[in-house]
């Protein structure tokens, strides 16, 4: 379909009565009747107390209040001649209907006004898909702090190695919304925004099956809405810490990781009662954010071997007496579970301001965050990904700064009581920089001996190395540690979008109609590659020094010189676009310039709500322009060899993809306690930007043939990924206090991104090269069970369980890279995906004394126990020779060329994981203040959960190397014997697979064992 051929006026006429972002409001509807006769009360008044929202009952006594911001309300019904009835604790959820019926007693009856406390319905009658919601009040009782941790508890969600996977989709297939604005980072598909738990009014997880107003995410959406201010001032201050003992010391059997969290909120009216604000601020400092099991070790200077944790420091190669003396003087002692140079300092601000001048309501909401953290990966190529590799260079550890801002300004204009339209403007900005702590942004100075001397770092000479003989790493028993004084890398990027929208919603009889559209225009820039081992700043300085004339001409803007200089720099800026070679932002078109993808969507939606049937149907049109290009003939790429780039005039602009996605949801409320729901929908999402964009130097490099086993491959004209999902569910309240929901789903995912190789025409000067294409597919099925026990006799509970089967041809875009490089067939048969955990779930029990219950000691005391359980995830048992790998990697099979699978892909499973978490809290009243004291323990039993294993052994504690003389004998002998064995154990085996991430996967930071026990204490004061 060619979108350009559709006249804009037709589109506007059909689809553009309104533009809208995802809603952050719900509605209340119900009926007002005479308590004695059941007769409807025409014109009875419904009021949401403390607000100006309300409605009047119609001829049938029915009323509806639309556009109600989510939250908890007190709803009052009144009518002349009748006594008022007030229902408190009425919760309104995003895009759902809260049903509230009133029976008013006549004034003649000798009773006073009636007040009723609403109970949250256990079964939602009008949701046509599985929708799980949590308010802050819900999850402040459970022993986790972060929003992501709570999301991971929900049915259908798998948390693995830092990613969230919903119903078998890849981790980038989850959509995130904050205040109705898109909070998904288009570059990598992750959640770009950090929300303070205390600022959350509600978050909602829809694991597929969402309505037509949502798009751009195939697997599920997570919607977060911030609190609004009320009529009264309210504040809270809260602090939380585990910082009770020194680093490496234990308190109550748990190590301290230097965690400190300060949070404050303030809300209320702002000068004018129509203006209300809510602000939250948080500072979190983590001294050791790399929380992990790790047995410490020490290099001694006595030259004696003591045991596996204490052994002499002896250099193997790259000998330099000055350097060795320096290292000997410095020494190393690493305490248990204490990773040095792993701190993070984070500031977050969330807030809303609402100006309610009905019929106009203006709401500004958003999140700002800033963080600075130690990078956990070092610049050294051989030992990359290892925390230990940095141990001699901690004072020059790479720093990362990241800031994000998401703002949404929404204006709602009410058109009578049942219709309204909204205008939204939103702004997202994310910027990141990684740099050397001494020389900051001046990357030219990183490898300049004079500049380093100015910072107190003495280079041996000016040969671009801190030490004699070009040494940037020091070899100790075959382990390449980063040499002291070695500078960090430099990397920066920016991306963000400006969006706008407009929307119209109306309630007509039983139909809730919505029409809308949204538009986002992104800008993405990336400078330099901090990829492993390139140390591009060193190469670039060297290239400039050795070729100053080319450098000067490139600086002056000569494109040929710029290309030549990039190549002389070792093509080290393969990931650069939107910046020139010297780090200046540029705004040119083509592959060198910034990229401006845009996403435009239109939708129409009708939710029909009858007593025994709810139909939610919609149609969505997505227009996705990736600002991408392709080649007319990929086998003859337009390689501009002379200028080390591409012939821009031969690039073919990729046309915008236009996709139509029908959605249909049905709910059958059989009784007040029973409801079936069915859902069918098609979903599309654009490829990640990281799968689309690289700079001209990248293309020059791949056509030259220099891309073997690289994982930063991009695509040429990628199409959207598509999903078709079917869902059927059944919710049943089987007692006054308990209900369950059982939902089954089937998903078919097509056109997922996979790696492929282009064979070039023999006449082309280019080499065969790797690209990303649409090709992988997956089929996922599952059953999700939720069992809810409403609080009764102090006890409440929740059980979530998911049984799933996620099969596909590739778990990630690069899954098939080994096959590609070995010119083998890419798998076209389905296998279990890496993140397929067949069974997982959580069980939460909350026992709590209410106010006035249990006496002075026990009242307001609560305990919450949370059990998480999960079966393992798939992996492939393999064997292989030592090959060319570094001695530090030992038995790991780093090189796919020497790796031989022993079974079908992903035929084995890692062990089951369990953890128990506990929270204790008590609230005491101090005058008008409430003081909540709490502690929570994560991984109460300090269980060492095996989350990953070595492929050779299927074991997390033994990689099959040291015990296999055929494999390790010569390596041990060549690298110092017993001390090598000890260092190997200290880093690889006792170090929780410190080298594992590099060697076994493409993901840095993976661990073999889950997090150890952590205990945190907190206090919250509120008014």
């Amino acid at each position: 379909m060619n979108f350009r051929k559709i006249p804009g006026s037709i589109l506007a006429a059909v689809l553009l009565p309104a533009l809208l972002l995802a809603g952050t409001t719900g509605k209340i509807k119900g009926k007002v009747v005479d308590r004695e006769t059941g007769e409807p009360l025409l014109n009875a008044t419904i009021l949401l107390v403390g607000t100006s929202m309300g409605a009047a009952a119609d001829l049938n006594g029915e009323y509806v209040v639309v556009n109600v911001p989510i939250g908890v309300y007190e709803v009052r019904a009144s009518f002349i001649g009748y006594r008022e009835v007030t229902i408190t604790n009425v919760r309104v959820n995003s895009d759902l209907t809260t049903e509230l019926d009133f029976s008013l007693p006549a004034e003649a009856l000798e009773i006073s006004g009636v007040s009723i406390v609403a109970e949250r319905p256990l079964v939602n009658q009008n949701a046509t898909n599985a929708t799980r919601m949590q308010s802050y009040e819900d999850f402040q009782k459970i022993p986790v702090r972060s929003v992501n941790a709570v999301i991971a508890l929900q049915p259908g969600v798998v948390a693995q190695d830092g990613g969230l996977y919903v119903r078998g989709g890849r981790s980038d297939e989850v959509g995130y919304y904050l205040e109705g604005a898109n909070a998904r980072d288009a570059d990598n598909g992750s959640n770009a925004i950090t929300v303070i738990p205390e600022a959350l009014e509600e978050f909602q997880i829809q694991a597929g099956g969402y309505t037509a107003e949502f798009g751009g995410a195939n697997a599920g959406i997570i919607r977060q809405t911030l609190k609004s201010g009320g009529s009264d001032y309210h504040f809270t201050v809260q602090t939380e810490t585990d910082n009770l003992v020194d680093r490496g010391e234990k308190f109550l059997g748990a190590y301290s990781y230097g965690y400190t969290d300060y949070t404050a909120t303030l809300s209320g009216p702002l000068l004018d009662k129509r203006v209300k604000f809510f602000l939250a601020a948080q500072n979190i400092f983590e001294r050791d954010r790399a929380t992990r099991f790790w047995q410490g070790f020490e290099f001694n200077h006595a030259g004696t071997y003591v045991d596996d944790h204490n052994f002499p420091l002896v250099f193997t190669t790259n000998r330099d007496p000055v350097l060795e003396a320096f290292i000997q003087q410095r020494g190393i002692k690493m305490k248990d579970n204490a990773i040095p140079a792993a701190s993070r300092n984070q500031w977050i601000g969330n807030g809303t301001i609402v100006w309610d001048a009905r019929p106009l309501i203006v709401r500004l909401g958003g999140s700002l965050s800033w963080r600075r953290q130690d990078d956990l990966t070092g610049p050294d190529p051989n030992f990359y990904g290892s925390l230990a590799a940095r141990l001699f260079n901690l004072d020059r550890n790479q720093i990362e700064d990241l800031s994000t801002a998401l703002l949404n300004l929404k204006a709602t204009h009410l058109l009578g009581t049942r219709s309204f339209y909204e205008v939204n403007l939103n702004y997202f900005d994310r910027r990141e920089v990684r740099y050397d702590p001494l020389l900051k942004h001046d990357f030219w100075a990183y490898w300049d001996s004079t500049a380093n001397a100015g910072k107190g770092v003495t280079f041996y000479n000016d040969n671009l190395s801190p030490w004699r003989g070009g040494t940037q790493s020091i070899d100790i028993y075959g382990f390449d540690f980063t040499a002291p004084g070695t500078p960090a890398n430099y990397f920066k990027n920016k991306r963000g979008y400006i969006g706008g929208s407009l929307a119209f919603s109306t309630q007509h009889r039983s139909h809730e109609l919505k029409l809308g559209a949204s538009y986002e225009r992104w800008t993405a820039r990336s400078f330099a590659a901090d990829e492993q081992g390139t140390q591009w700043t060193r190469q670039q300085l060297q290239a400039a020094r050795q070729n100053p004339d080319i450098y000067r001409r490139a600086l002056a803007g000569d494109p040929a010189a710029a290309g030549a200089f990039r190549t002389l720099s070792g093509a080290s800026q393969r990931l650069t676009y939107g910046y020139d070679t010297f780090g200046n932002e540029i705004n040119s078109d083509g592959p060198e310039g910034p990229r401006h993808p845009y996403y435009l969507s239109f939708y129409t939606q009708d939710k029909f709500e009858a007593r025994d049937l709810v139909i939610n149907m919609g149609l969505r049109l997505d227009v996705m322009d990736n600002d991408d290009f392709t080649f007319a003939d990929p086998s003859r790429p337009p390689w501009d060899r002379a200028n080390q780039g591409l012939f821009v005039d031969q690039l073919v602009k990729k046309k915008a993809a236009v996709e139509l996605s029908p959605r249909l949801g049905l709910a059958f409320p059989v009784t007040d306690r029973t409801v079936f729901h069915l859902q069918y929908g098609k979903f599309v999402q654009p490829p990640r930007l990281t799968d689309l964009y690289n700079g001209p130097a990248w293309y020059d490099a791949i056509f030259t043939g220099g891309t073997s086993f690289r994982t930063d491959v991009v695509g040429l004209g990628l199409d959207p990924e598509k999903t078709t999902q079917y869902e059927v569910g059944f919710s049943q309240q089987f007692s006054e206090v308990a209900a369950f929901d059982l939902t089954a789903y089937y998903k078919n995912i097509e056109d997922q991104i996979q790696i492929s190789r282009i064979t070039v025409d023999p006449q082309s000067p280019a080499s065969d090269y790797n690209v990303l294409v649409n090709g992988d597919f997956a089929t996922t099925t599952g059953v999700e069970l939720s069992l809810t026990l409403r609080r009764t006799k102090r006890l409440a509970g929740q059980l979530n369980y998911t049984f799933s089967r996620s099969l596909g041809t590739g778990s990630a875009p690069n899954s098939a890279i080994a096959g590609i490089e070995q010119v083998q067939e890419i798998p076209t048969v389905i296998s279990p995906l890496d993140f397929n955990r067949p069974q997982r779930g959580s069980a939460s029990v909350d026992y709590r004394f209410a106010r006035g219950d249990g006496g002075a000691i026990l009242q307001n005391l609560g305990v919450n126990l949370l059990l998480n359980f999960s079966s393992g995830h798939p992996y492939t048992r393999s064997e292989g020779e030592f090959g060319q790998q570094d001695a530090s990697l030992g038995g790991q099979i780093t090189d796919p060329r020497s790796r031989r699978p022993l079974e079908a892909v992903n035929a084995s499973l890692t062990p089951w994981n369990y953890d128990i978490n506990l929270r204790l809290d008590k609230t005491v009243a101090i005058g008008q203040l409430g003081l909540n004291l709490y502690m929570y323990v994560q991984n109460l039993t300090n269980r060492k959960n095996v989350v990953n294993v070595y492929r050779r052994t299927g074991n997390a504690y033994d990689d099959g190397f040291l015990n296999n003389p055929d494999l390790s004998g010569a390596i041990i002998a060549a690298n110092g014997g017993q001390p090598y064995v000890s260092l190997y154990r200290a880093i690889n085996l006792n170090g929780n697979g410190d080298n594992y991430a590099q060697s076994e996967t493409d993901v840095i930071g993976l661990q073999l064992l889950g997090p150890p026990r952590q205990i945190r204490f907190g206090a919250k004061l509120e008014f």
Partner: protein
Amino acid sequence: MHPSRIRLGIAMLACTALLLGCADVPATGPTPPEFNAEFRFVHAATDLASVQVAVDGIQQGTLAFAGELAHKQFPAGSREIALSNGEKQFVAMSTNLRGTVVLLPAAAGATREFFRLTERRIFDSPQRVLRVANFNPALEAQVTITAGADTVLATRLAYKAVSNYIPVAAGDYLMEVKAAGGNTVLATSTLSIAASHTSMILGDASATTIKSVTD
């Protein structure tokens, strides 16, 4: 307070928060370094009259035989050296290098060589060292440098050969130049050495002189 001012204040607060919330990710790169070299010129060509010297078209001064133009900073790279008699060549002035361009005699029918003599990196402190170079095309030189009765350096240098720097004590030294294998002293010079020092043997078949420069 007027509501419009309140709203303006709120908007300004929001903008301020937005700006403060941004990490310092500069839109421009750091100032690119300038790469320079320091070179001087020495006239060692008996067949070349007094000439003006230009580097990349910029006049540097006039040089007569055995004369010199002092060290000056030039952009590192390949620089065009042009003489007022029309001769020109490119000389590689490497980044951070301090050196000398020596105008040598032109062999019959050949292009004159602009000889590059390197000294040290521009940011290195000068050492008290001594070296000798032979730029007399008619002479294979036997050089002896003595301090009193002690011989500090005795070396044979072919045309365009340069000895290594040798560390010496501060003081006066006597330099003698003979033809290799001969006994006739062709030139002598008293060297007063306080810093890095190069003595150049200049001349032709008819005469030999010694030119000493501080590097």
